[in-house]
């Protein structure tokens, strides 16, 4: 496949461009991350008869194909992109819920992929995660008190009962849940309240880095604002760093320090939020921006993309976006574009931008 052949070239430009920024150490560094999921079941199920011979047939979902990102201390890096582009997979690899097929994750300068659960334990206290579905992220058989005490007991085994209880009361108050409700079960709360409890659980161990995978998409507009405010307050109070995944661009514009736009397992553009919204460079980012339904009364002049969304099972050659891109040319179909730094702090992976034809 072309894109595999091109991988070293990509890596070279990557390291070159990262070299310039190395002076300030990022809190989290993701380097050339790839992740494949096997679609073919176990060994016996992979055997097929082909042309009279028994061959082993394997099919993969290429969920992540060479993602490199840096997250600086104190920022909120938003990741946007359409469904299935690999946002959650990146988040889950960062949190150690999945192991990468290749690539590195460094936290505070130290590699954390491929660590054993025991070795990861000190990092669990420093990095936490908030999930999308507030209805599934609380154990239905545990009370709120039990849910919130569990991480404290684990990470502070020598704390007194009182100390644990005080801490639980403190985090519950800080997320706006009445501490008297501790004896209740998750299902007795509304979606927004459950998401607050999930946030409280993440905050209980005083983390410095939080991965939030679409934490507000399952909530109503009026509740979204509450939870978003809560996340922003927490950021201020605890000096948190966020990796924030969403598909709501309005939220990104409001919340994000920088934005990474993903398409089919690759990053196509990374930019400071204001820059990205003022002048999107990558053709996909432009299409995405024009598709936001606006409140203003002018009829949308959105960029219509032609072509089918390719699947991550049969990854297209060259630029993953070329089948839908209005500016694609021969080179786009052949060669994987590298993320190249532009003057304004933006990095774009697009031959068109590189060649200056758009």
């Amino acid at each position, binding site marked *: 496949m072309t894109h595999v052949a091109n991988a070293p070239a990509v890596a070279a430009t990557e390291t070159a461009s990262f070299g310039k920024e190395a002076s300030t150490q990022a809190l989290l560094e993701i380097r050339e991350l790839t992740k494949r999921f096997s679609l073919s079941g176990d060994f016996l199920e992979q055997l097929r008869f082909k042309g009279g011979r028994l061959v082993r047939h394997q099919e993969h979902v290429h969920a992540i194909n060479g993602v490199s990102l840096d997250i600086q201390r104190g920022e909120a890096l938003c990741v946007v992109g359409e469904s299935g582009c690999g946002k959650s997979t990146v988040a889950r690899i960062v949190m150690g819920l999945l192991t990468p097929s290749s690539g590195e994750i460094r936290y505070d300068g130290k590699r954390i992929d491929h660590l054993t659960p025991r070795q990861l334990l000190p990092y*669990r206290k420093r990095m936490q995660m908030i*999930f999308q579905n507030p209805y*599934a992220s609380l154990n239905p058989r545990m009370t709120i008190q039990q849910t919130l005490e569990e991480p404290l007991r684990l990470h502070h085994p020598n704390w007194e009962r009182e100390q644990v209880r005080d801490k639980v009361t403190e985090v519950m108050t800080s997320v706006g849940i009445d501490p008297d409700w501790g*004896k209740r079960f998750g*299902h007795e709360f*509304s979606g927004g309240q459950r998401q607050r409890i999930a946030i409280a659980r993440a905050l209980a161990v005083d983390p410095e880095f939080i991965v939030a995978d679409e934490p507000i998409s399952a909530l109503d507009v009026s509740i979204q604002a509450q939870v978003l405010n809560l996340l922003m307050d927490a950021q201020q109070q605890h000096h948190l760093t966020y990796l924030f995944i969403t598909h709501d661009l309005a939220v990104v514009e409001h919340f994000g320090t920088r934005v990474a736009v993903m398409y089919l397992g690759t990053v196509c553009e990374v930019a400071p939020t204001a820059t990205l919204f003022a002048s999107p460079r990558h053709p996909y980012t432009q299409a995405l921006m024009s598709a936001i339904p606006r409140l203003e009364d002018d009829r949308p002049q959105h960029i219509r993309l032609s072509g089918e969304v390719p699947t991550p099972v049969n990854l297209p050659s060259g630029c993953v976006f070329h089948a839908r891109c209005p500016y694609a040319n021969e080179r786009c179909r052949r060669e994987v574009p590298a993320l190249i730094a532009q003057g304004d702090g933006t990095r774009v992976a697009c031959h068109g931008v590189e060649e200056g034809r758009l």
Partner: protein
Amino acid sequence: MTTQVSTTTRWARFRDSYLLYSFKRTWSAQLCLAIFLCLVLAAFMAPWLAPTNPYDLRQIDILDSELPPFWIEGAVEHYTLGTDAQGRDLLSIILYGTRVSLVIGFGAVILQAILGVTFGLLAGYLGGRVDAILMRLADIQLSFSTLMVAIVVGAVVKATLGSSFYSQYAVLMLILIIGLAEWPQYARTVRASVLAEKSKEYVDAARVMGLGSRRIMFRHVLPNTLSPVFVISTVQIANAIISEAALSFLGLGMPETHPSLGSLIKSGFDYIQSGSWWITLIPGAVLVVLVLVINLLGDWLRDVMNPRLYKG
């Protein structure tokens, strides 16, 4: 939210539960539970309820054999349901037999559940090779019938330890045989619901927290997979009782001296020709009623707990 603060105790939760609500409205469930409880109580109170002790050879008179129950000509007054071929009071022996059947049924199901839940949990949660091995094991186990396990275990034990040992520990042997033969039912059910639970985000949250696999498995996943276990347990108890009866009927189960319902049916079977039908049919009816009420209770429970039919 406008919910007021209330302390929900376990009892209060049960009192408000759909289970109790549905039970109050389903008269068939109430009737079945009542019959089932009566049978269980009667069986376990047998030493006090039964007019005679059928295990006590001194109380048996062979001359009293094959006496009919009270509504038939020729009945003797204090043998309400008549006697069997050895002259034992049928009512007493049925009470004691029901007790044996129930003990074996429950014991076997507890063994099945322990094996099946553990294996299912491990297979579902750990996945990969553990899953493949355990589930192949379950497949192999299922492809042997209970009968085959019984014959093999029975033969091995009788050959090595002698048949008097086998009949002495027949209850334990039957629990072991039926328990070993039918755990895959549990393992499969538990594995399926573990797989469903495992993909839920609270399990990920527990992993992100840094909890170990054992704690996640037993503290987080297991309690959420127990309702289907509960439901199939009823069916499994009924099945175990029937299996035991079948094995006893074939002479692989309880000895005549310590009969279960199955061995009673068997022992009476030879006398049907001679007109003493009650020796077989009365224990048979008790068995049918017992199994039927358990199954009906199981059906009701399944309907109540089926989340697709019922949404909170």
